Each structure stands twice: as structure tokens, then as C-alpha cells.
């Protein structure tokens, strides 16, 4: 459950192929600006994602401040939030002038990013509920954040109390039962019931919540290094 962005496949569609080509050939050409803007909208509707194309667009906006569309910028930032735990959101912010960041909708997104970065999920969901008008434009937002929350939980916990999980992914009651059931049959989760403490979820083991699984890289020597002594051995 490490990969947190199952909803944003990086697969290029037929159109993206040409956009990626445009960027590769001529990233500093203001004429491709409209194509890149359309491409952002396409990423939103098809639930795909291309960080490099979006950064390229933000860079062009820097050179052409008059042509900046705040609506497009907002969409790019929401997509970047959905790419957590990758640091895409701050990469984008570095390219957006401070006076633009002062706008209300961007302030909200920055606060949301801050809550996610500091794993304060309950505050995040409260704030997100108040900002539906900004976030609803981008389908798949909730699922992407849930995937990120599960990623962080799996790095941290072997067994996580049901209530902690519920808070992190903002799902409760019957829906939570269904959610867990789905994960049990698809992602290797398990349920444990304890008499006095309620339900626990056993998260799949990885080398971060079971450090003993960590392969000792110190003992392994890469083949290239061994190859250096082949002439001597022969």
C-alpha cells in the first residue's frame, strides 16, 4: 500500500503523447501555453497526472504573468495535493508568485497542504468539508488523500486502532466496514478484535513497520564492484 496515487495513473493518453513531446522539444516557448492549459483540464477529467507538464506551464506563467489563469493554477495545485506524499505541491508553489498565493482559494489549499504534511487528518477533513466549492472541480480528490493517509499509517503502524484509521480516512460506521472488507480481500489487511479495546486493523508488513524485514544493504556488494576484480581472479 506504499504507492499512494492509484487514482492518478501516469499513463500517457493519445493526447498526452503530443504534449509531452512539445515539452521535450521546446519547453521555453510561450506558444504552447494554451496546449498546456488544455492538458491540465484533460488531466482533471481523465484522472491522469503529469507533474512535468504542469511545472512547465507554471514556468511559462512566470515569464508571462498577464496570461496566468488562476483557475488553472488552482487545478494544478489540487492535482499536486493528490500526489502526496510526493513534494509536488511545494514544487508548484516555488513557481507561483507570492501575491497570487495571497488569494483566498490558494490560502485554503496551502492550509490543506500543511495539514497533510503534518498528518493532522481530522483537521484536514474539517477544512476540506468547508472548501467543497474549490475541491469538487477535481474528481478523485478524496480517494487520493485516503491513499496518502493509508500510506503514512502503513509506514508507522503494525496494528492500528479502528478509531485512528476512521479519523485518518474520514470514513465511519457501515462505510468503514465496507472499506476495511475491501482492503482485507485486496490489500492484505487483517482484522483483530480485542475484548476491552475494540477493533484493530493489522496493516500489511513492510520494512518500515517491521524493521527486521529490512534487507541489510551493507553486506551486499553490487555486481559492478565485483566485476572490477574479475581480471585478477582469472
Amino acid at each position, binding site marked *: 500500500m506504499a504507492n499512494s496515487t492509484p487514482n492518478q495513473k*501516469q499513463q500517457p493518453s493519445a493526447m498526452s503523447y503530443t504534449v509531452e513531446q512539445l515539452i521535450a522539444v521546446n519547453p521555453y516557448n510561450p506558444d504552447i501555453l494554451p496546449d498546456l492549459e488544455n492538458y491540465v483540464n484533460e488531466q482533471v477529467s481523465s484522472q491522469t497526472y503529469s507533474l512535468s507538464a504542469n511545472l512547465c506551464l507554471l514556468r511559462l506563467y512566470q515569464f508571462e504573468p498577464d496570461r496566468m489563469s488562476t483557475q488553472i493554477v488552482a487545478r494544478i495545485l489540487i492535482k499536486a495535493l493528490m500526489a502526496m506524499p510526493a513534494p509536488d505541491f511545494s514544487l508548484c508553489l516555488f513557481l507561483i508568485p507570492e501575491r497570487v498565493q495571497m488569494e483566498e482559494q490558494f490560502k485554503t489549499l496551502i492550509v490543506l497542504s500543511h495539514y497533510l504534511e503534518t498528518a493532522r487528518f481530522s483537521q484536514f477533513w474539517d477544512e476540506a468539508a468547508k472548501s467543497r466549492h474549490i475541491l469538487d472541480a477535481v474528481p478523485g480528490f478524496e480517494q487520493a488523500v485516503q491513499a496518502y493517509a493509508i500510506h503514512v499509517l502503513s*509506514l508507522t503502524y503494525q496494528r492500528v486502532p479502528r478509531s485512528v484509521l476512521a479519523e485518518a480516512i474520514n470514513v465511519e460506521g457501515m462505510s468503514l466496514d465496507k472499506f476495511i472488507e475491501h482492503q482485507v480481500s485486496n490489500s492484505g489487511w487483517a482484522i483483530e478484535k480485542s475484548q476491552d479495546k475494540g477493533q484493530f486493523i493489522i496493516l500489511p508488513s513492510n520494512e518500515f513497520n517491521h524493521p527486521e524485514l529490512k534487507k541489510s544493504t551493507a553486506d551486499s556488494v553490487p555486481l559492478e564492484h565485483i566485476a572490477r576484480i574479475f581480471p585478477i581472479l582469472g
Partner: protein
Amino acid sequence: MDGTASFDYDSQQQKPGAESVAAGYDPNYVPDSVKSFVGHMYRHIREKNVYEIHQMYETSFQSISDRFFKDSPWPSVDAVAPYVDNDHVFCLLYREMWFRHLYARHSPTLRQRIDSWDNYCSLFQVVLHGVVNMQLPNQWLWDMVDEFVYQFQSFCQYRAKMKSKTEQEIALLRQYDQAWNVYGVLNFLQALVEKSTIIQILEQEKEGLVQFTATDGYDYNGGSNVLKFLGVIGSHITTIYHYGFASLMLRRYVDAIREFNKILLYIYKTKQYHQKSPQYEQILKKNEQMYALLAISLSLCPQVMLVEETVNSQLREKYGDKMLRMQRSDDEGFALYDELFSYACPKFITPSAPSYEEPLVNYNQDAYRLQLKLFLYEVKQQQLLSGVRTFLKVYSTISLGKLATYMEVDEPTLRTILMTYKHKTHAVDSEGKITSNADVNFYIDDDMIHVVESKLAKRYGDYFLRQIVKLEGVMSDVDRIKLE
């Protein structure tokens, strides 16, 4: 090529801008040593004697500058042209050095900035498209590109200081809006990258990772304009500096620490050989800045075992005290992050032209302020982590409740702090692979925290391999000795 046309007005244009230049400068007076300098240089370039060119470029130019042109520019290109057969390309090269000398010692006028841009355009046209059969020392080529980027940054800074502009200057800026235009600059750099096939060279070296745009310095992820002329130490150091800085901003602390450590050790060991180089001061400056960046990286990710002993003791000497205070999550610690970052960050620029209609405001500090602010956000988010580290280092197991009491927070808050620690110390790449930068490993089971001691890994395998190769060397040396 219409490059020569722009030379004609050079000497005329010199006079209005002469306030910034020492009185009594006669652009047409050519001292004998300059005559012989350009004459020899011209001959060496025609004969492709790279060694001699390099000597003259590194040493003679410097010493003549010190002797004759401490306070004034070199003679105008028109004045020296007769001594070099009016050679078009040589004149372009001469002017490039002329401007570089001017930029280093005086503050150039707007007209001079524009002329220098024109000269670069003509020069790069020749380099990129010309069939010029010419070989210049790598050092010179690197300096040229480095200077080009520097002059671009300088132009952006100059343009951004709108408040003090005269009407004349603004009119000139409008008239020559193509000069130092950001697209022009970037396209030249990209064309040079392609021409140099540097990417292929880097890939061959398996260093394809080193990608960083020197111009739009705050684009940490994209760009590929790094020109690494192999063997040119200045460029090598600059590359690592930018790569390390980008890693730091991307939270790849272990990467940043490793790279800074390697290059600082290298500088430490080879410093004495560069003392005479004109780049020496530049190297020292970068050296100091990288120690500051290393101090930041280690404060955010305390993995001192990644740092070589010599580098570490230098670091302690310079920043030991500050680093201790940076561990504290109070305002003073925070202010130190601010101080070190401001000292060590690259120059940031705002590449767009101002709107001349709106009230004139200075915006030259905008980009830097934004970078600083965003970096301090990150520091703030991590401020509680150093406290948690301290406790985790002394326990092998501890309950959430107990640790929460020690840290004076409630249990839900502690859970978020622990998850923040995990998030900030684990980077996920585009393929979903997780790399850990963690200095302390732990996991939570139910409401118990289990800390796993990370053993210092000794690299036996590598050590043995190296010894085998060494022994083989000794044995073949011994074999070669013939006993009489």
C-alpha cells in the same frame, strides 16, 4: 552576420556612460602590452595552441588587467582590431572579455548591458551555427556561459529595481525589450546544452541525475541546463552545489548530505592547488555556503555518520554552536535556519519584465523572499521532530501515553507527530519506491512504540574488494623488480 555593425557605435556610446568609469579613460589608447597580448592570443587561436591560449587567458589577461586597467575598461574593440586583422570572431571574443572585466570592476550602464547581450548573441550564433574551426580551453568556455548566466541575473536584478529608474532608462528598456529576454536566454542555453552533448556525456557517466537549471534557479525538478565541462573545477563545484541545494529543497536530505560531504572533502584536499586560480575566491565562497547547507541538512536529518571526519570537524568549528541551537524548537532556532538559508541559497530572479504602466515598485527581492518563506514553512512543519528524536533515542519501547506526557502534548497530537516524522523521513519516487532518510526507526503496535536500534553498517565487502585490488597492484609491482 551583422555583428560588426554594433561595434561602430560602441566607442560613441561609451562617452555618455562614462560617469561610471574612471575619468581620463581613452578607449582608443592601446598600450604596447595589450598590442602584444591580442597579437599573441590571436595567433595562438589561429594555430589552435590550446595550452598557450589557456596560459594567456588565465594569467596574462589577469596581470595586464591588474597593471593597466584596475580602474578603467580595456581599450575598445575598434582600437585593437587593427592588431588582429580585424578578425570578426576574435573581436567577439575580445568584447566578451571586455564586458566581463567591466562587469567585475564597475557597474555597467543600461546601454552597456544591452551591448553585451548583442555581443553574446553574435558570439553564440558563431558557436552554434558557425563552421568556425576553433578550439578554446574548457575553462574559458565555462566562464563564458557562467558569465552569460550571471549577466542575465544581474540584468533581472537591475530591471527589477524600478523605483530609481530615470525616464530615459525606462524608454530604453522598452525599446530594447528583446535584450536579455528570458526566452532568448533559455533557448541559447538549451541550444548550447544540445550542442555540447553534455546530457549524453553525463548519462555515460551515470550521473544523469544532475539536472538543474542555473537560470530559473527555483525550478528544482526540471531543466537540464547543467553544463559540466569535465575537468573544470569551478563548474564541477557549482553543479554539486546546485544539485545539493535542489535535494535539500526536495527533502532528499541523505542525498544532499552525501553530495556536500563528497565535494567538501574534495575541496579540502585540493584547495592548495587552486590558490592561484582566478576562481579561487569563488571556490572558497561556495565552500562556505555548502558548509551552511550541510549544517541545515544535518539539523533536519541528523545522520552525522554520513559525513567524513575532516569535513565534520570543519563543520563543528564553523557551525557547531549554531547547530546545537537549531535543534531547539524555539524562535532562536528558527531564526538560525533563516540566517543560514539566506546566506547559502543561490541567487533567485524574477525573469519577467515589469509592467511599465503600473506604479513603479522594486521587485528584485520577491523571488528570494518566496523561497525563504517556503523553506521556513518546511522547517516549521518539522520543528517538533527533534524533540521526539531525543526521546526515541533513549527508549527501546515506550507507551504513547507516557511519551505524550513527557512531550507535554495529548495522545492524538503525539500520533500526528510520529506520523509526520515518518512522512518527512521517507521519500517516494515516481515509481512508488520508498527510500528512508530516517535516523531513528520505530513502529507503533497498538499503543506501544517500539524503537529499533539502527546498527552502524560496516562495509566489509567493499573494504575487501579494495584491498584485493591493492594487493594485486603491489604484487605486480614486486614482479616487475628484477633482482640482479
